[in-house]
Every structure is written in structure tokens, then in C-alpha cells.
């Protein structure tokens, strides 16, 4: 049995974690911690309950909407239902609506999804393509680092046992930007990604000026693949550029064979989903996609089905 420490402030959490290194575990929504605890994967003497810390929750637009700060305790369901994020960070909202079930999304938090370190987690790829920084609180104060540096391996982050993820900050250009998250699963819902892919592009007219491509579930940590993104920059995202980005992403990842797919199948799926996600991101960036409408999870558009 674990005791529960209900913290009143971020500083109190950090102090408690520092005084109980190795025997305390922060609990956010609980959808991973409660399962891990029941299965004996973790044995905390103390659960540090973060739910009463209002400073950690919320979606706040700053600098005239050019920056959004997302508290680590923000529920996945809140991301899913945010209309502004739906228009301006479509990949993030697409990933949110695919995560778990309504019940899980009502409970689970963005910080928990990141800090659990699951390679197939839904939140990292879209946050990576939206160039997220994360703010971390520790005994010596706050530090900010690129999100890509958070992940250390399956189930592991670089955070010290007495550090706490406080918030994420994303830059949201006013216009000419589009993003998309797609995933492959065995089942349509209540499943973990076999492959998760996010792409974001910024365009000037119809030419791509910046791009990012991120992958989940196909390496020990979520990947940001610069080579794949570079294949898109300077193009009008024609079929050849999208396919080249897909090939480069497939070459850059290192999937394993497990119940969700073989290594070679996952690599092929990466290539296909990167191609489709890049194309949808470009359609959004150029205003050719209806605002707020999510893409089908596998990126197959109705016209291609027929």
C-alpha cells in the first residue's frame, strides 16, 4: 500500500520528491500509474497527487496567440475539444482524439503521457512537429528544454526523480502552417499505435519553407526526423517530395517486431503514413482542407478509397 501526498504547490511537490527519492512517484490522471502499480511494475511508498495543482492545468494562448502554453496536468479530453488548437495545431488534436477512450481521455494528462515514456505514446509526435519546449521544475529552479530531449528510452525520461514537468510551449504561426497526425493500429479504437506519424509544414504561397516529421512506436524513443523534413522544404509538396520524405523516415527509424507488427511492415507503414501526413499538412497550410475537420486515422481520403 502506498501513502498519498497531496501537494499544494509545485515547490512542495519538488521538495517532497527530493526528500523521498526512489520511493515516491507523481500521479497525474492515474491511467498508467494505477495499472503499473497493480501489475507490480512500480512499488512507490508515496504517490504524489498532482490533481490539486491548478498551476499545472490549462491551455493558455500568449503573445496574441502566437504561443500556446499547455500545463502538464491538462487532460487529453481538453486538448481534443479545444477549437483553437483544432484549427492551429491539428496534429495535436488528431492525436488526442485517438488516444484511449473517452473515459481514458477524461482522466489522462498530456504530462503523464509524456513522462511515462511509452515509445508508442500519442502525444510526442504532434508536440514534436509543433516544436514544443518543455518547462521542468526541480530543486534548483526551472529549466526549459526542447521536448525531443525529454525522452531517454522505453519507459524512461531524462527527468531526475525530483523533477516535475510543468508545461509545454508551442509556437503557432498565424497562417501558412498545417499539421497532421496519423497512426496505424490493429483495432480502430482502444489500441496503442503500431506506427504513429506527425508532419507539420509552413508554406509561403504553396512552397514549403519549413517542415518537421516525427515518428512514434518505431524506435526506443519518439523521433524527430530532419532528413525526412528536409525532403519537403523548397517543394510544393508534390507526390515525389512526399514519397521521398516517407522513404527517408522509413530508413531513419528502428522498429521492433511485436504483436502490433513486424519490423519490416512497420517500416513500410512509416513510409506510407509520412507521405499521407505531409500531404494533409500541406493541404491545411494552403487552406485547402476544411478547418477543424480531422483526417481519418490512416490518412486515406475518401477520393482515394473510391
Amino acid at each position, binding site marked *: 500500500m502506498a*501513502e498519498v501526498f497531496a501537494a499544494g504547490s509545485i515547490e512542495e511537490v519538488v521538495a517532497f520528491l527530493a526528500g523521498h527519492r526512489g520511493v515516491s512517484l507523481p500521479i497525474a490522471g*492515474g491511467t498508467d500509474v494505477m495499472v503499473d*502499480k*497493480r501489475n507490480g511494475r512500480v512499488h512507490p511508498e508515496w504517490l504524489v497527487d498532482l490533481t490539486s495543482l491548478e498551476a499545472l492545468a490549462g491551455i493558455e494562448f500568449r503573445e496574441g496567440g502566437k504561443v500556446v502554453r499547455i500545463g502538464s496536468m491538462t487532460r487529453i479530453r481538453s486538448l481534443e475539444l479545444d477549437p483553437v488548437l483544432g484549427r492551429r495545431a491539428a496534429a495535436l488534436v488528431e492525436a488526442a482524439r485517438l488516444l484511449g477512450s473517452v*473515459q481514458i481521455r477524461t482522466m489522462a494528462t498530456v504530462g503523464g503521457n509524456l513522462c511515462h515514456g511509452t515509445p508508442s505514446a500519442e502525444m510526442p509526435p504532434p508536440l514534436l512537429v509543433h516544436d514544443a519546449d518543455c518547462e521542468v521544475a526541480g530543486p534548483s529552479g526551472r529549466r526549459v528544454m526542447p521536448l525531443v530531449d525529454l525522452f531517454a528510452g522505453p519507459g524512461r525520461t531524462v527527468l531526475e526523480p525530483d523533477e516535475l514537468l510543468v508545461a509545454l510551449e508551442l509556437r503557432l504561426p498565424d497562417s501558412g502552417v498545417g499539421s497532421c497526425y496519423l497512426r496505424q493500429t490493429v483495432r*480502430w479504437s482502444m489500441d496503442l499505435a503500431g506506427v504513429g506519424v506527425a508532419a507539420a509544414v509552413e508554406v509561403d504561397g504553396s512552397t514549403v519553407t519549413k517542415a518537421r516529421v516525427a515518428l512514434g512506436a518505431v524506435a526506443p524513443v519518439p523521433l524527430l526526423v530532419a532528413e525526412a523534413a528536409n525532403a519537403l522544404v523548397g517543394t510544393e509538396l508534390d507526390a515525389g517530395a512526399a514519397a521521398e520524405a516517407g522513404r527517408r523516415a522509413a530508413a531513419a527509424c528502428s522498429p521492433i517486431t511485436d504483436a502490433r507488427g513486424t519490423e519490416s511492415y512497420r517500416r513500410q507503414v512509416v513510409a506510407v503514413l509520412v507521405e499521407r501526413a505531409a500531404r494533409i499538412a500541406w493541404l491545411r497550410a494552403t487552406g485547402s482542407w476544411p478547418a477543424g475537420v480531422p483526417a481519418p486515422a490512416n490518412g486515406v481520403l475518401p477520393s482515394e478509397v473510391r
Partner: protein
Amino acid sequence: MRIEIVVNGDRYVKEVMADLSLLDFLREVLGLTGTKWGCLTGDCGACTVLVDGEPVVSCLQLLRQVEGRDVTTIEGVEHSGELDEVQAAFVANGGAQCGFCTPGMIMSTEALLRANRSPSESQIREALSGNLCRCTGYSKIIDAVLQAAAERA
């Protein structure tokens, strides 16, 4: 640990283990066994209850985190001994067979209909995607939700 919580409109003050789940509290402490003990990993939805009107899987809900909030279980759905529209529609449409998933299905439906008075079939499927049923094949459950929505509208 002492906990104060409102379940189905009744206030309870109980002495409990600090890391108890909401599910264990409902079943073992309050004796409200309508909420089912299913997979215990958040996959099956048989333990779904509402917290402040939002659906959660009570097996993964740390009780301490819902202190002072308003919990509704399947036992709190009826109106003075009469089935509510959702329960009645599940009965009328054969939306329950073995019945194990039914409390969770009904709680997810209650949450859906609070947020969306006339959901489409695809919105219903999406809202119930965290509730597994091994008997009905889901079609009759969808029929039941559509009927309940129509009766409430």
C-alpha cells in the same frame, strides 16, 4: 485516510486506505456492486462511472483524487424506482444480454447525452468505444442509445 465524497447525492465520510481506487471504494466500502470489476486496466469500461458528469474508469481512478466531487454510479441513474430513458431503452431494444457491460454502457451513454442531445450513429460508436460487449454485437446497444436520445430530445 479519511475521505468525504458524494455518491448518487448521498454524502459519505469514511476511513479508507490512502491508495484505494474509486472502484474498490464503491464496491467494497459502500456495497454499490452495480459498477463492475472487469479488466482493471481501463480497457473494458465495465467500471465506468461519472465524476462531475464526466465518464471515468473507476478502476484507474485514485479515490483520493475525487474527494469532494460528485460521483454518479448506475445505482444513481433511476428516478424514484423507475428506470430512466437510457435504462428503459436498453431493456426495450435488447441492449443487454449477459448484462456485465451494461452499467458501464449506460454510464457512458448518460455522459454522451448530457453533452450531445442528438448524437449520430458514429458519435455513439465513438462515445462507447471504451466499453466492450461480448454478447450483443453492439447493434442493439446503438439502437438503444438512439431511442434514448430521441425520447429525451
